[in-house]
């Protein structure tokens, strides 16, 4: 197993540590394993679903399950998911295609003409509602200027820290963007103007390298810690959650 993917999963799981009793949803293998790891180690109050119709009392392993039966706890069909979203008791870690300096994310389409997309993707899904209702973090397996774009993302699918788009009666503090986790670093918005800043650098990565691969100016603090290496306990938990090693291909080399 690549050391990087395990390091990223462990680091990303820290995003949920102080959330308390909320529903955590990790979309994609790395966010899901990060959330699952948190539920089994740093925040055992987390709620999680089986991605179908139930809240489960323990995270469901990734990939083929063999005889494993989900440990259902509460029915949670899609209609009830929205009731939870609007209550605010949730953090989502999703994997958008683009993000901009305001933290606005895009999963809808690529291109400058909305009526004629260059590439049609999923559609905005639940991202607008997620972004204005509860905490959100994002994961990018490849940190580059195609993902971290100059200007705004092509279809703004989430509310971010963009003063121009701030709704009447809202302040930037009403938006709760947490972490942006990538193959190079972890970033957050913990700056006076909610600018994206480097929170920690993965081993061997420099701040200059991150800036070169980002289409906008990021805040580079004087002293940036190195993203901590996984502990033996964390690795053991991850191996149980991903017995088939599905995560091996989650970060392209």
């Amino acid at each position, binding site marked *: 197993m690549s050391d990087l993917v395990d390091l990223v999963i462990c680091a990303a799981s820290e995003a949920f540590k102080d959330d308390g009793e909320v529903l955590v949803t990790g979309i994609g293998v790395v966010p899901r394993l990060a959330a699952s790891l948190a539920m089994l180690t740093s925040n055992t109050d987390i709620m999680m679903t089986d991605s179908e119709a139930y809240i489960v009392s323990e995270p469901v392993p990734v990939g083929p399950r063999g005889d494993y039966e989900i440990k259902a706890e509460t029915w949670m069909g899609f209609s009830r998911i929205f009731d939870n979203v609007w209550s605010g008791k949730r953090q989502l870690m999703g994997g958008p295609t683009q993000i901009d300096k305001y933290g606005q994310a895009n999963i809808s389409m690529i291109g400058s003409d909305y009526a004629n997309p260059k590439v*049609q993707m999923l559609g905005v*899904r639940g991202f607008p509602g997620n972004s204005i*209702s509860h905490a959100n973090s994002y994961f990018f397996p490849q940190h580059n200027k195609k993902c971290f774009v100059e200007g705004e993302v092509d279809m703004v*699918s989430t509310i971010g820290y963009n003063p121009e788009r701030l709704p009447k*009666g809202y302040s930037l503090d009403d938006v709760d963007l947490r972490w942006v986790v990538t193959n190079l670093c972890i970033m957050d918005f913990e700056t006076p103007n909610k600018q994206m800043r480097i929170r920690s650098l993965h081993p061997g990565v420099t701040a200059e390298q991150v800036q070169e691969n980002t289409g906008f100016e990021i805040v580079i603090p004087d002293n940036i810690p190195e993203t901590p290496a996984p502990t033996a306990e964390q690795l053991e938990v991850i191996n149980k959650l991903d017995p088939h090693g599905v995560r091996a291909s989650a970060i392209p080399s």
Partner: protein
Amino acid sequence: MNKEMTLTDIVGQLEDGMTIGIGGWGPRRKPMALIREILRSDLKDLTVVAYGGADVGMLCAAGKVKKLIFAFVSLDFIPLEPYFRKARQSGAIEVMEIDEGMMVLGLKAAGYGCPFIPTKIGLGTDVINPDVNPDIKVIDSPYDDKEWVAMPALNLDAALIHVDRANSRGVCQIKGPDHYMDDLFVRAANKTYVTCDELVEDGYFSDQEEARYVFWERAQTTGVCHVAYGAHPTSCWPLYSFDVKHFKGYSASAKEENGWENYVNEFVNCSQDEYLEKVGGAEAIKQLPKPTF
């Protein structure tokens, strides 16, 4: 009242230009036999409202869709629906792209008889950009100083739904793990046409445990058509799972020359019985493994 109809009867009740809601979610419990009947008809210019999967993709490929109201179109394990993608990238369809939860509110507003439901969803995003969605308005509130998105009612001329079982009076049961937003589609619609995997006797629901899985009153059901495996290639769990192999072939066809025409000739221009034979038969469908993610 006996509400039994054939697929042809149902499609005969639909008209060009109608707004049609389709139940299910992505690759799950879609009324696919009914969709194929529409593909065989000359119905056109539809406005389609759906949590979309291959139902939307096929209707787009066949040129049936004038406008699509959607939050996503996806086969889940194949994230991008190939024919929806083609339709969008060639500018062939008009769209109203909204958040999944906004669709909930739009359907509820229609069911409640309200013109809109206020929500904060969409604020700060391009969903409320007039260039993207000119029909979605942002309004002031009579109760606070914030602005709110006025999610318009999604009034449907017809809802098309697939259920596990129904009786001829229109009592419909969804026994699977999730009824999705099907009850909301039904209540938003002027008429609701249901296909069912099993047609049961009236007394079936006298067991209260069975009656708990009925999500709308029979007065909301206009017509019922018994189509065993009528959701295939989508799932109707626990009766059967979705057909990964079939979806892979369907998805690959979009990249082949005359791929859609070939798919139609093979799987659409035939009876439901012939279709079931072509996809491996009833026993094979029952044995489809449940995909895990």
